[in-house]
């Protein structure tokens, strides 16, 4: 090597010259240098291939929605289920206070839901563009119209019921209350779970691979939240609510078990990384935790039973919120996963 050195190099620097040769050899042979402090970001040079796609750049765009949308999924799900509970409780002659509170939850959700959607759209009048057309092939369009029908019905039922309690019954109030109740029931049924259709029928792999159970999952999550909110408002003696809460919690437990027991690269965002931990936390809070608390409440004294149910209720509500956030995050991670769009047959 030293015979290549120009004669002007002082002999004391020979070691440094040899080091340069060594660096060159490393770069040539390994494509990268292993020296403390030297991190050539691009080395080894990335290459495109059928396995790595185009430099592992994700094909899909991430879902662009802000924090308001998963929150809307929660609010809408709870409100829809609450309206169904209110209507059925009223038809079967359950106590008036339960009906009233369930209606108020539905009405509150009817006000908060558009606000959350508008927060994502940026300007209020943009929401009106949703009502230009009705497109059955677009879950977003179906959802927007369902929301309009549901909100009108739920708010009408709650206010007419309120006025009747306050000023006594009258024919117009009864007509508005019943029509509102019927509408909030009819629209509440799809409204409580359509968000599962909304994200299921997209190009995002983790969502569309779960399209068959997302609406069921979100529906159970909404019911758990609605029952939880009612119990937190004080209805902790209703056996019907206990049964519904238990049913929703058991369903969510099964949903969690279903996801955990299946393998596949497309399920990774639900199990690993931050999005996986959010989904798992939400799943635990909505499924096994309230299930155990509710079972415990069945076999304990009156006072302790109510306390158990309060905790189960709180757990279900928080679990429902966290579940929606988890699925939204999982969708982002899934869209970023460059491997998935290159697969021919995703397992």
């Amino acid at each position: 090597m030293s015979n290549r050195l120009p004669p002007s190099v002082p002999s004391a620097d020979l070691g440094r010259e040899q080091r340069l040769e060594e660096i060159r050899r490393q770069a040539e042979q390994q494509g990268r240098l292993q020296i403390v402090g030297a991190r050539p970001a691009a080395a080894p040079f990335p290459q495109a291939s059928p396995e790595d796609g185009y430099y592992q750049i994700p094909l899909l765009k991430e879902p662009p929605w802000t924090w308001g949308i998963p929150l809307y999924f929660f609010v809408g799900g709870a409100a829809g289920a609450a309206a169904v509970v209110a209507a059925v409780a009223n038809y079967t002659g359950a106590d008036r206070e339960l009906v009233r509170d369930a209606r108020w939850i539905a009405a509150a959700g009817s006000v908060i839901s558009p606000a959350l959607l508008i927060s994502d759209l940026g300007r209020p009048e943009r929401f009106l563009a949703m009502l230009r057309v009705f497109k059955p092939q677009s879950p977003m369009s179906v959802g927007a119209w369902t929301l309009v029908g549901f909100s009108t019905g739920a708010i009408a039922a709650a206010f007419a019921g309120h006025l009747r309690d306050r000023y006594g019954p009258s024919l117009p109030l009864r007509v508005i209350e019943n029509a509102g109740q019927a509408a909030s029931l009819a629209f509440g049924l799809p409204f409580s779970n359509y968000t599962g259709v909304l994200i299921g029928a997209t190009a995002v792999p983790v969502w569309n691979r779960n399209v068959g159970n997302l609406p069921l999952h979100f529906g159970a999550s909404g019911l758990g939240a609605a029952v939880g909110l009612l119990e937190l408002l004080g209805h902790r003696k209703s056996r019907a609510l206990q049964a519904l809460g238990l049913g929703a919690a058991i369903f969510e437990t099964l949903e969690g078990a279903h996801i955990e027991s299946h393998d596949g690269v497309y399920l990774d965002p639900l199990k690993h990384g931050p999005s996986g931990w959010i989904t798992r936390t939400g799943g635990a809070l909505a499924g096994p935790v309230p299930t155990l608390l509710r079972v415990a409440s069945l076999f304990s004294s009156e006072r302790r039973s109510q306390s158990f149910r309060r905790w189960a209720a709180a757990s279900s509500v928080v679990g429902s919120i966290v579940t929606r956030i988890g699925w939204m995050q999982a969708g982002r991670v899934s869209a970023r996963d460059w491997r998935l769009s290159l697969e021919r047959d995703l397992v």
Partner: protein
Amino acid sequence: MSVTAFLTDSTLCIGCKACEVACKEWNGIDDDGLEWSGFSYDNTKSVGASTWRHVKFVEQPPVPGFGGNSGEQTSWTFSSDVCKHCEKAGCLEACPTGSIVRTEFGGVFIQPDVCNGCGYCVTSCPFGVVERNPKDGRAFKCTFCYDRQKAGLQPACAKACPTGSIKFGEIEQLRAEATNRLQELRQRGIDDATVYDPRDTSVGGTHAMFIVRGDPRSYNLPPAPEVPTAYLKKAWMSSAIAAGLLLGGTLLAFWSDGKSNGR
């Protein structure tokens, strides 16, 4: 007024980015900023709200002759990417406002004055083309130069392409041209060239076809794109079952509760 298409031939592309520049100038699109990606000469990485034409610089392990290089050098090909203008377009189906329409030329066009920025088209595009503009929240993508086509002109990118890599014309004519070009390339010994036009998937073919060498996946062209409406039946079925369970369960719970309370 015929149904038109792009045929982008990567074997003719020299990576000059004239199409990107022409597209940006004609359509008045925002700049992308300058961020070094480290991926060859590609610092835009993908099509998006502010990149409607995007030249990919595809460096692959050395294959003698591939990309015109000698055997020991990295193979280097270029390909100008664009909105695929699907025959069954996920964005168009998903758009709740009717902003996204099919034009008389067969292209998929977002009417910017109708778009309300819901972002559903972004999640519904199996090619990751549509994107929200972070400045005003609305979705943007290639318009297939609807304004120019209306005036009988070819799209800006096709007009600016100096090598004829971006071809524009009547769709069936271009399909035939793609087959001819493939044969011509085969005769010259380039037998790894393929046409990317996913007609056998639920997307049902595109109005932007590509001729690439080797596996299209190296160009981020997905082998099995699915239009999300394909999932609708399963989704609404599940929704109906969920609604039925909710109604039935609630009725059962309150009815049996009322009965045991002696009502």
